[in-house]
């Protein structure tokens, strides 16, 4: 075991982690621990754009953007946070441009902007051009630009280090962060990083679904590390299903395709979104569009012999426009489906895309241990966190924005905190839990296979807690997950070695997915209403009287060692917007 000492440790090197690192490295001695080489992070898969009311191509302002974000989140958004997001969006985009990001340009040479789902002029009048973009690889360009600037600033990376435990120490009755424990993939060695601040920026947890746009590596490691140490997870029942994933594969096809004029059609060729969202049509918010697609499928208007998908139609758009604005997604259709988007519509279905919930933080990125108490020295930003700027449903282009605004904020806050505080003494045997976990998995002679349990989990989640949910389906999921958690104790791996043991790490990741799936299903069961991405067929309406509140899920361990989930609730911060019926 090796012990390292840094002012600030950042867990994860996607957009939020690297944006934080650029700030904290200037201010404090910083280490970035990342399970992937930074440029492999899933920020790079984001396509369509990053919202900011620059008003470069038409009238716009941040107040409209704030309203759209709150409405998009079905009023579960903390409105003070949404206002910060929309206001600071403008500088966040300009910061990236100054760092070198090659945005597409207007004829005047300014940053070009395009339409995106749920973003509107004057509180819902019509779609507005607010998404700043670089073709359909905006996330790729953000990831590259941030990495380039990390190189410039000399950010210190520990690549292929998996953070498996969060060290919390109680001092004067307050839980404080003392550092993290990490596993080095190349050697199998365990490292303890003692630090004054820790920032989690480790991304989402979409791999508990089967049809997902998420990378294989998005297994909720940061959420799980904090949750196991007794910290709450907020609003985990809210998961976004992106309307346009490649049929069966789930690979993302950007909403920017509809922003450029693409149309969703059913088997009769009908533009069905006109029925569900008369004003915004194909550019309604993602939860609305995904439900509409599945309604078409369930009512027998789906395409193909199984009637199990609909079409994204780009055939009326000029090929030059597709080549210039949507080169990557049209190539995906050619590569993975053998389809030419110039002439043929693309079969799509909703795909599990984004966790609105996560580790609760305030607007400085400080992690909360309950509804109000800050954990000194602990921060989170990006998809792993829940500020909450996305509420019950995130608007497209607001995640690339979130990672930049709150990545920057947490990077500054964590480094400043490190300056004014002393190291906290590490607990005795700081790596004990991780060592025990690794040894148990390495030495297990159990009969269960990781891949089998993972697939059963994914199929169960797809079938029961996806776009449509009921009491019965969620209960089925809760029971199945409990069974899988039991079987997981009997899992064994084949690779017993120390070098690059990805067999072992996949087993660890599966444990994280199982814990988080349980939290998600349990939170969903208790929310007896429909709001944003959480749609209950048995409670089809939003219930502001009983459920205008955030879910807070805690892991409880009884004296006899039995684990359970305790649910609590947190009020939503409302400033200037009263909840209204949500229509697009």
């Amino acid at each position, binding site marked *: 075991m090796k012990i390292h000492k840094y002012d600030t440790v950042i867990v994860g090197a996607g957009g939020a982690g690297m944006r934080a690192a650029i700030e904290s490295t200037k201010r404090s001695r910083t280490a970035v621990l990342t399970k992937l080489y930074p440029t492999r992070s899933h920020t790079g898969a984001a396509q369509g754009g990053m919202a900011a009311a620059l008003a470069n191509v038409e009238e716009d302002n941040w107040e409209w953007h704030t309203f759209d974000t709150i409405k998009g989140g079905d009023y579960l958004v903390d409105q003070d946070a949404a206002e910060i997001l929309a206001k600071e969006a403008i500088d966040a985009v300009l910061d990236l441009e100054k760092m070198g990001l090659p945005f597409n340009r207007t004829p005047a040479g300014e940053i070009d902007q395009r339409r995106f789902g749920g973003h509107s002029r004057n509180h819902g009048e019509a779609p507005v051009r607010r998404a700043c973009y670089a073709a359909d690889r905006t996330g790729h360009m953000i990831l590259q630009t941030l990495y380039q600037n990390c190189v410039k600033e000399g950010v210190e990376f520990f690549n292929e280090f998996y953070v498996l435990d969060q060290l919390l120490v109680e001092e004067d009755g307050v839980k404080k962060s003392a550092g993290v424990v990490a596993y080095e993939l190349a050697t199998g060695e365990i490292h303890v990083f003692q630090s004054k601040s820790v920032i989690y920026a480790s991304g989402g947890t979409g791999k508990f679904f089967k049809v997902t746009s998420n990378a294989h590596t998005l297994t909720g490691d940061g959420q799980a590390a904090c949750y196991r140490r007794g910290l709450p997870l907020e609003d985990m029942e809210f998961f976004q299903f992106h309307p346009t994933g490649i049929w069966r594969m789930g690979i993302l096809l950007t909403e920017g395709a509809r922003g450029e004029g693409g149309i969703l059609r059913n088997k009769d060729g009908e533009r069905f979104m006109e029925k569900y969202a008369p004003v915004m049509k194909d550019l309604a918010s993602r939860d609305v569009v995904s439900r509409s697609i599945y309604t078409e499928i369930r009512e027998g208007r789906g395409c193909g012999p199984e009637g*199990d998908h609909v079409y994204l139609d780009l055939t009326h758009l000029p090929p030059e426009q597709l080549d210039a604005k949507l080169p990557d997604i049209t190539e995906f259709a050619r590569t993975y489906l053998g389809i030419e988007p110039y002439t043929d519509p693309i079969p799509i279905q909703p795909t599990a895309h984004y966790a609105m919930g996560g580790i609760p933080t305030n607007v400085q990125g400080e992690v909360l241990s309950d509804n109000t108490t800050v954990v000194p020295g602990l921060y989170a930003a990006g998809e792993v966190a829940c500020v909450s700027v996305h509420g019950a449903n995130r608007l497209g282009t607001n995640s690339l924005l979130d990672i930049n605004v709150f990545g920057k904020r947490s990077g500054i806050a964590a480094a400043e905190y490190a300056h004014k505080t002393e190291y906290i003494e590490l607990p005795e045997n700081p790596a004990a839990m991780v060592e025990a976990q690794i040894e148990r998995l390495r030495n297990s002679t159990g009969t269960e296979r990781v891949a089998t349990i993972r697939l059963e989990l994914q199929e169960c989640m797809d079938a029961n807690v996806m776009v449509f949910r009921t009491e019965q389906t969620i209960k089925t999921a809760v029971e199945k997950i409990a069974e899988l958690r039991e079987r997981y104790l009997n899992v064994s791996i084949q690779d017993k070695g120390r070098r690059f043991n990805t067999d072992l790490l996949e087993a660890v990741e599966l444990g994280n997915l199982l814990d988080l799936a349980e939290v998600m299903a349990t939170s969903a069961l208790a929310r007896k209403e429909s709001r944003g991405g959480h749609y209950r067929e048995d409670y089809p309406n939003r219930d502001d009287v009983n459920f205008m509140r955030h879910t807070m899920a805690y892991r409880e361990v009884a004296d006899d060692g039995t684990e359970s989930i305790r649910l609590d609730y947190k009020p939503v911060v409302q400033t200037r917007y009263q909840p209204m019926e949500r229509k697009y």
Partner: protein
Amino acid sequence: MATPTMDKAEAAGTPEPGFADTPYITATFRIRRFNPEVSDQSEWEDFEVLIDPKERVLDALHKIKWELDGTLTFRRSCAHGVCGSDAMRINGKNRLACKTLIKDLNPDKPITIEAIKGLTVLKDLVVDMDPFFQAYRDVMPFLITKGNEPTRERLQSAEDRERFDDTTKCILCAACTSSCPVFWNDGQYFGPAAIVNAHRFIFDSRDEGGEQRLEILNDKDGVWRCRTTFNCTDACPRGIEVTKAIQEVKRALITRRF
């Protein structure tokens, strides 16, 4: 009722344009294995996999790892060609495993898979990427500007933006660099990927560090080592005209115009 879901194995026939539905086939994957904890020699190992030929080579590797041999080791993440983790040598050509479909490889014969060349193999298909990223860092891959920053964005015409568009697509997968015979023979050579990333800034109208980067690439291990074999262009999974970019950097070194 729950959300309708689809099961790949159960789905039959499709009138969709594009791929006709194809039956599963048994394909042989001949993989060069290496694990220094076990032996200092590498050896080929065959795995037979029942697979839909429309699936990716990465899907086959997962089937092997998840169902046959958990010790098989490779890097992967996004699985659709944007993260750059899974460059490997497939049937003798550098490609991304997640962007190569089985049906495009003549699965009647064994499909060979080995680590990319020119970088030290650490285990199976995993190589040491540090020298590759060091070459990247050495070309100063970030925007260099002088004077005060403007309040708003720097202006750039659509034409100026287009000038370096091709080289912004790079995902640093190393398929190009590890396909280059010059790099195989001399790991000191910067390699195509580093030059591509220098090009991305040299030809960016906002950048003022072009001269510095050109001097770095004027080094004996710089662009002049390129023998224009076009392996890099063939290997690039993003379709970047890598050799052309290298030639443009050479030309800029001679004319000092960019």
